[in-house]
């Protein structure tokens, strides 16, 4: 979980992130960041997400739940 937070903070261009942080509240939230998250999740968890799944996850913690639910 710690590594997930660290990577998400890096992609969202902030020092740290928390479970309840809303994804679209970050200044760096845009289509390129979504693309970066898709690549990160694919590389780190072997899970393929699309942009809508990420948007619908709403929060940092919500996204982790989506990733975990799609892990084989």
């Amino acid at each position, binding site marked *: 979980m710690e590594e997930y937070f660290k990577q998400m903070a*890096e992609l969202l261009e902030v020092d740290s992130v928390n479970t309840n942080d809303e994804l679209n509240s970050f200044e760096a939230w845009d289509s390129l960041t979504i693309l970066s998250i898709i690549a990160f999740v694919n590389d780190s968890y072997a899970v393929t997400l699309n942009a809508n799944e990420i948007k619908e996850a709403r929060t940092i913690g919500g996204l982790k739940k989506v990733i975990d639910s799609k892990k084989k």
Partner: protein
Amino acid sequence: MRPYVLITGASSGIGKAIAIKLSQNYNIILHGRNQSRLQQVRELCFEGDHIIWEKELGEVDNIEDNLASFIKANNIMIEYYVHSAGIMKMLPLKAQKIESIQEVFNINVYSAMLITKTLSSKKLNGGMLKSIVFISSNISQRGAKAFQVYAASKGALDSFMRSMAIELAPKIRVNSILPGAIYTDMTHHIFEDINFTTKMATNYPLGLGNPDNIADGVVFLLSDQAKWITGQQLVIDGGRTTDISE
């Protein structure tokens, strides 16, 4: 006797189309990473003495030795070379890591340099090489979000092409083809977005292209019809990069 042409990345997409088209007049060395897929392509080729070279081009350290051994083991000389192997990852710069950058450059650039070095060697290939075509991309001359490393690799490939055209003249001609977006295994994930594909189609004055359009350009550049052409970038993109109408 029909000359041998080495085509890297021949198991799918543009490389596969080039292999099938050139097999009418050349013996093909089908390069790729997957033996069974290469055998399938070989079955689609016209009759000839076609050989498979299975090699992971991401492992650049042993490319020269591997290719030299392959040439020796098969007792052949290679007269033509088409570098169609390539990888493309749409990734914003902030998501790039040294490993992902290195992987793209290994396959798109460094392997082409090392194969060119081996094939242009008199000792290793008998000084038989006559013409090289690198499959570059029209993004080599342009820019697009999330394409920075891929674009840089194709720009590097084209720069290498120009200098090699001079260094290897007059014996060996070296040129690039710069395709626009073509539907292949490498790009299918982009075309899956219907909105994107519709937009793309309107951006191409001649409509979307296919791998055969690129193979036709390769046939020309390798042939004697192009005997006074070297160091050039041939853009084959249905007019995409010429259009500034809106």
